[in-house]
Every structure is written in structure tokens, then in C-alpha cells.
């Protein structure tokens, strides 16, 4: 008899709005406290202290418009947030400050989260959906200079970009971008040439989320369908379907592979978190706690494997924190 699925480690309440984005910052050495950032529908970014399990600060930078992406840039003092006010804000949180250093006006009305990639110390690339339909823009941060604009060929009816993932094979090599589109296809872009290398129709419905394992060159994407699609990239830079996994209930809003590439988690419209073994897509657990659609899942970046956490943010205003498969 298999063990019953675990309960959440603890639950963070008090955002008083649906939670759309989560990001951990726990990698710093003691005595720094581990922190979780959460972006909510009310436009606030809450900074949770995971020791006290209370909100340290609430940042208001998006004019009460929903925040749907939060990321840190290197340390927990530098935060990036993206909101429905069509702005991406860069925050300075050092020494208790809560000021917006800079902001980028995206002019995009979609829900596509931006993607960050560290190129060198203090130099970042950010991909974001831009004003024109189906177009993705890549900027260099913090200088905000445009690196390239990725336009699909004329006649390719991809629709809006839905999710982005910047990655590189190894440090210092060519950055590449994976983008999931509204028509259900995933496209691999070469940034320096501004050209699509490969395109794969993974889903019938818009791709809601994707994640990619650059070591195994294998990725996973979820859509509003009942199917998870796992695809791989071969040496000729061609995407191909590796396998698909059928779900019990339709709708995946987020999918994340744990940094150690052992497991992955999906955020389901059916209020459940699903955990899979990443190597063989072996279903491992179904975590049933929330009472509404889950919007995001995120793994912590604790340096000690045993401390690693999983967080899920849901429409029911709660953030559940789980500790699962930490002993491997």
C-alpha cells in the first residue's frame, strides 16, 4: 500500500487576492532568512519571511493591476516584476528600500511571463512578448537595449506567445529561446540570427506553460487540454515529440522542473498539484489541498537538498508550501 500523499508543510494566508506568481530566494548563506516573493491579483508583491511565515513587506508598483511574474536577479535585493499594467519593474530592495529603480513598458496585453537569463555578472537577457501580435522582444538588462526582435514568418499563424524560456547549452554559449504559442506549437529561436530553428505542434490548445532541461535537452509543456507534452531537441536543433502524458483533469497553468532535474510539478485547473519523476514521467504524487485553480508552482533554491521546498499559489488566495522528495 502506497503512502497517502503528504499534507502541506505550512500554508501562507493573507494575500487577500488570487496568487499568480511565486519566486523563492533562499540560496543566500545564513544568517539571511529564506524569502518567498508572491505576486497577487491585487497588484501587490508580498515578501514572505519563511522563518516567521509572515509578510515582511508588501510592494505596490503596478497600480493595483495583477502581478503575474516575479523573479530575482542574482540576489534577493534585486527583484523583477511584471504586471498587467503592461510594465516590467526592476526593484531595489537592499537595506529595507522598496523603490522601483527602472521599468520597461511592454505594451503587451497578454499573460505571457517574461524570461530571464544571466549572461555575465550584472548582465542579463530578458525575453518578453511585445506589442505586435506573435512578436517576442529580447532586451539586455539593466541597460534596456534591444538585442533582437523575433517575428514568425509571414503566414505562420502562431498567435500570441504564451510562455517563454531563455536558456543556453552552457555558460558563455549562444542563448536560445523556447516560446510556446497560442496555436499550441513550441518554437525554438536562435537569438543571434533572429530566426526560428524548429517548430513543433505540441497541443491543440494554447501552450500555457513550458519548462526545459538544457542538460537532457528535453522539455515539457502544458496547455488547457488533458495532455502534458514532453519533447526533445536533437543535435540538429530539431524539436520532436518524445511522449505525451494523459491527465485525469484538463488544464495546466504552470509546469516547473526542480533545479536538480529529478522531479517536476504541475499546477492544475483541477485544484491539484501533480508531481512526476522527470526522467520517465513517472507519476509520483497528487497533492490535493487547494479549493480553486492553481496558478503557479515554484521550487526553492535552497543550497541544502533536504531543505528544498515547493510552493503553489492558487486562486483561493493561499500559498501552500510542501516538502516532498527531499531525501534524494
Amino acid at each position, binding site marked *: 500500500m*502506497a503512502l*497517502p500523499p503528504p499534507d502541506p508543510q505550512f500554508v501562507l494566508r493573507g494575500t487577500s487576492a488570487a496568487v499568480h506568481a511565486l519566486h523563492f530566494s533562499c540560496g543566500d548563506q545564513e544568517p539571511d532568512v529564506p524569502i518567498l516573493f508572491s505576486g497577487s491579483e491585487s497588484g501587490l508583491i508580498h515578501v514572505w519571511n519563511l522563518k516567521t511565515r509572515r509578510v515582511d513587506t508588501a510592494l505596490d508598483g503596478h497600480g493595483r493591476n495583477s502581478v503575474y511574474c516575479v523573479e530575482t536577479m542574482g540576489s534577493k535585493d534585486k527583484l523583477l516584476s511584471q504586471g498587467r499594467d503592461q510594465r516590467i519593474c526592476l526593484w531595489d530592495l537592499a537595506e529595507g528600500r522598496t523603490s522601483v529603480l527602472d521599468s520597461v513598458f511592454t505594451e503587451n496585453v497578454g499573460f505571457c511571463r517574461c524570461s530571464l537569463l544571466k549572461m555575465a555578472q550584472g548582465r542579463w537577457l530578458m525575453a518578453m512578448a511585445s506589442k505586435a501580435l506573435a512578436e517576442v522582444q529580447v532586451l539586455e538588462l539593466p541597460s534596456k537595449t534591444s538585442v533582437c526582435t523575433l517575428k514568425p514568418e509571414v503566414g505562420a499563424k502562431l498567435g500570441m506567445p504564451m510562455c517563454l524560456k531563455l536558456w543556453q547549452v552552457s555558460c558563455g554559449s549562444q542563448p536560445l529561446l523556447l516560446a510556446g504559442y497560442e496555436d499550441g506549437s513550441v518554437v525554438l529561436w536562435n537569438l543571434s540570427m533572429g530566426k526560428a530553428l524548429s517548430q513543433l505542434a505540441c497541443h491543440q490548445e494554447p501552450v500555457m506553460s513550458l519548462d526545459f532541461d538544457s542538460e537532457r535537452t528535453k522539455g515539457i509543456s502544458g496547455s488547457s487540454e488533458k495532455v502534458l507534452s514532453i519533447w526533445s531537441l536533437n543535435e540538429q536543433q530539431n524539436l520532436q515529440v518524445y511522449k505525451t502524458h494523459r491527465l485525469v483533469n484538463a488544464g495546466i497553468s504552470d509546469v516547473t522542473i526542480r533545479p536538480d532535474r529529478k522531479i517536476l510539478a504541475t499546477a492544475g485547473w483541477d485544484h491539484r498539484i501533480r508531481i512526476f*519523476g522527470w526522467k520517465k514521467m513517472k507519476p509520483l504524487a497528487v497533492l490535493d489541498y487547494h479549493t480553486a485553480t492553481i496558478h503557479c508552482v515554484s521550487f526553492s533554491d535552497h543550497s541544502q537538498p533536504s531543505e528544498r521546498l515547493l510552493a503553489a499559489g492558487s486562486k483561493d488566495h493561499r500559498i501552500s508550501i510542501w516538502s516532498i522528495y527531499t531525501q534524494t
Partner: protein
Amino acid sequence: VLEQFLQKGRVAALLWEVCQQPAQPGAPELQEALLSRVACLPDHVSNQLQGKSPPVFFPQNYFPLLGGAVIEVLQKISDSLRGGLDCSISFVSHILGKVCVHGRQKEILSVLVPHLTELTQSDCIWQRICWRLVECVPERWMEAVLLGFVQRAPGADVLSRLLGNLVVKNKKAQFVLTQKVLLLQYGHKTAVLQNLLGYLSLDPLRRSLLIQVLQELLETWGSSSAVKHSPAEQQQYISKAILICLSHLKESEIESCRQELLTSMMEGVKCHLDSNLPCVRRLGMIVAESISLKINTEGPVLKFQVRGSMKFMSAVQGLEERKVLKHMIQDVIAKLLSRVIPRTSRGTLSGWASAVLADARAVVDDDLIPYDMSEDKELTAKAPLYLRDCIEVLTGCEDVDKWEATVKALEGLIRRNPAAAREVKHVELAKILLHLEEKTCMEGFAALRQRAQVAVLTTDPIPVAQYLTSQFYSLNYSLRQRVDILDVLVLAAQELSCPKSHGNTKHSVAPKPGIQLLPGSDSSKDWRRIVDERIKSKTRRIATGQAQVEPAASPNEFNSVAGHFFFPLIQHFDRPLTTFDLLGEDHFVLGRLVHTLAILMYLAVNTVAVTAMGKALLEFVWTLRFHTDCYVRQGLLSCVSSLLLSVPAERLLEDMTEELLEAQSWLGDVVEKDPDGDCRRLALQNLLLLENLKKKL
């Protein structure tokens, strides 16, 4: 003497003689005399011999013999034509015509047609002879001969060989074949239609006739009075003819008359969909579909959900929707093709390689132990547990899943505790249910709603029935809602009048989802079933003298409330509202109303109010008895039957004698004259019931 004469084949010789002498003076009289003798020989003989005529002179033997003789003569004629001699065929034709018009087509043509078919196979002289033979038949006999040929020819090509271009040359033949057989008669088999229309299509000269015929058929098909007044069999016949015609038409010909086809199709669809009879509606849809398929070779095609679509979407709407859909599908297919083909050919090999590698790696360390995942089931919304919550959800909830769950749970909740259900006003609930629209594509929604409505009505009959019946005649309801009211009243009455336990099990076991979709057929069947059962039970009791096992006695709950169900419905039918005119356009609802009343009347058997109800119903029937729609008339006749069955005999005879006598004469009329077969049958049944009534006294 005559017998020997016949047996030696002298008839042929006689005919041959006559054919050889061309137009001698005094010949016409002689020919006339001979003609009548030959054609009517069996009658003459049997008259003479007073019914003791020898077997040769029986019509079934004589006419085949005559046929043989005709063949023989034709053989000679053809020989002599080949020899360059001229001779007249008209006498043979006359004989053929006369025999046919005397009703002996079957006998003589069953010999002639196979022979001629064989002979005309390859020989053009024979073909000419054959054409001549038919052509020379006098006009007054033409119809009989032609019909015989059309019915007996094994195929359209044979018919074409036998008749040639007769239709084009002969006015009478044209009339018979293009008008009479197709538009005025409807008893022929489909094979006949195929023969005839195939024959018309086989020659370019006749094809113009084919198009003309099609237009005339469509005119009849699309005329609203024809749809209303002609029997269903004829409409089926005409529809068949149209379909066959369409299949014979070529693209170019359709092109030339596309506009006319389209207009007549539109009209036809309109008046077919207006009909109350499901079979007529379906017929209309089928024909319209195939016409539109023919006339629109590219682009929009009209499609109906032939299986009982209550939404009478106009044809134009249908066309546009289709167009959009079709474009979408094409796009998708194109996309798929363009994407799939290059991908699959490339990179299969490398895909394999990497997959194998990944698998190999995976085997090494996969030590994660899964948790129990048996709880991972399909998500279902929780249904509310109290009626008050239900009302809240139904009136103002945006959550689709919850809404669906509520609709599913409603009937059970209402039925579970009728006493505790006083927490809400049932009228309010009935109102909500009546206005409840289908928000999502929910399976069996109509049935669920209906069952909930029935449950409400049975738990609190009087106020809810008052509410529903008053709403039936008020403004601002759709036909669907009014029909719903009627259905609910019927089902609830049925449940109330049945013994308690019986009613309950029946309801949970056999829901009737079909009643919403095909109300016409269903309810009348329903009614008939009830009456049949009733009659059966009665006869059994009388015949065997055995009492049936009585079900446990319980008070008839319908007794006290029957009036509330019945009288408000019957009161206002003749007061048209701006949105609802029972006697005018909304005859469909009238038909349903009449059927409902019939069932209510039947279920009210043994109640106190039954006599008063019967009286009111009889008056109602009397005012509507000449309604043009046969569905309404069927309902009226059902009313009369249930009235005769429900009201006690002595009450019938004391209180309603005169009305019944009037009704009897009307029923007699219906039995004789009504165009609809079902109506005639029902009227006959009623007359029998009346007879039984008389016998009882």
C-alpha cells in the same frame, strides 16, 4: 367451335387478316365489331353460357393467349415490313388499348412486355414497330396502356426502347406520364418512379421535360396548402420523385435553373418546418438537404440535425453557419498537412537515438517512490444540500460546474422531504425552473429540468398548477416554455393519479428524455398506449371473468386537484394575445394543448370533477372540429375517446346526450372523408366506443 378456334391459334390469323387490308370501304364498322368481339370475348362467352364457360375463356387464360397472338402478328408484320410490304398496325393497337382499359393490363402485358423487351434488344425495326404500336392506341385508352408499360418494364432503358419519344410526340401521353402519375396519384411503387424518371432522362429531347417535371414537383412540394392538406403518403411519394429527379440531373442543367431551385427550396423548407407532424418535418429537411447539396457544389451546404431538432433555425442561418465552419475546417486541415509532412520525414532517426539514450539513463537511478494517487479522480462540483441554496445557485451563480451539479441534484432534493421543503415557496421554484435556460451543453438537461418541474408540481399541486396554467396563457413565453408547461402538467397528473409506490418507482426508473425532443410523436403515442392498455384490461376482464390483482389501495391524489389542472387550460384558448395566437399561427401548441387535455381527461377517471370536465371538453372539441391541421384533429379525437372512457356511462347519457349525438355524426364524417389515416382510425375507434356505450344500456 370458338374453343377450337382459339386453340388452333386462329386469332392471330384473324388479326393478321385485318392488318393486311388497308382501309377498305365499310371496313371501319367491321373493325369496330371485331374489336369489341375480340377484346371482350370472355364476357360474351360467359354471358351466353351462363357462367359455365370452358377454362380457355377465363380472363386469366384468354388474355395471355391473346397476347401471344399479338406477338405472332407483330412477328408477321415485321417480316412483311422487311419484305417491303406495307401494313397497318393500328388494329392491334386498338385491341391492346381496349383490353388494357378493361383492366386486363396485367394479363396481356405480362406476356407482351418480356417478349418485346427481348425483341427490341437489337432490332431497330422491332423498336419502330413497338413505338408505332403504342402510338396508335387511341387517346382515350392511352393512359391504361402507358401505365401498364411503366409498371411492368424491368428498367428505364427498356422502357425507353419500348416507348421511344412518345412523351414528346403525344400530348395525352405527356400528360399521363408527367402530371398524372407524378402529381395526382401516389400509390405507385418506387420502382415505377425510377422507371419513369429514368426514361425521361435517357434522351436529350426528353430531358427538358425532366427539368419541367422537377420544377412542378418542387412547386407542389413547396406549396403550403399541399403540405397541409395532402396525406403524408403522397408527400413522401413526391419527395421520392424529387430525389430521383435530382439524381438524374447533370451539373449544367442544375446550373441553368439553380435560382428557381433555391427559391422553391426555401419556400418548401419553411412550410415543412411549420408542420406539426414530425415525419413531415423530417421529410422536408431531408429533401432540402439533398437539394442544397446538389445546387451548391462548392461552398455552403444546408444541413439539419434530422434527429429532432426543435430549434427551427432558418435555412439562411444554417447556410451561413456552415460556411464559416467549413472554412475553419479547411484551414485546420491545411495547417496540419503543411506541418506534419516535413516533420515526420526528418529527424525520426535521431529522435530514436536520443530516446533510447534517455531511457538507458533513466533506468539507472529511478528510486522515487510514488505516493498513493487513488484519490486522483475527475473533478466534480459539489451539489448544494438545501433547496434554498439551489435557488441561489440557479438564479445568480456564474460557476458552471456548480450550476450543473445543482440541476442534477434538484429533483432528488425536492422529493426527499416534501414537508421540510416548506422552507421555500414552491411557486417561486416553479417559476425559476420554467425560466431556466440551458447555460452549458449539459447532457439530458431538458429531462432533468422537466423532472424537477414535475417533482415541484406533485409536492405542492394546487398553487403550482395554478401558477403554471396561468402562465400558459400569458405574454412573453416561448413556444418551448408553453409546451414544457403542458408536458409537466401531464406527467405530474399521471404521477398523482397512479398509486404512490408505483408512481415513484416508475419515475426513478424510466425518465422520459424523449418527450422534449420529439413531442409530437411521443405524446400521441403516450396517449394511445394508455388507451390501449385501458381497452385491453377491460376486454380481459369481461372475457375471462377473472379479477386482476388489485394494487394496494391508496387515495387518488389527483382527485382533489384535477380541476386545477384542467379548467384554467381550457378557458382562454380563443383569446389571441399579441405574442401567442393559439387559433392562428401557433397551431403546434394548440395541438399539444389538445393532446394534453385528452390525457388529463383520461387520468381524471373516477374523480369528482370528471363530469364537469367532460362537458367542457366536449364543447371545446365541438368548436375546433374543423381545424385544418391534422395533428390538432388527432388530438381532438383523442379527447373524445378519453372522455368516453372516463366519464361514467350514466352521466354521459343523462347530461350530454345531444352533444354526443352531434359528435357521432361528426365522427361518421371524419371516418369517411378525413385525408389523414390516423384521424380516420381514431374516429372509428370512437364510434366503436359509442356503440359499446349503447350496448351497455
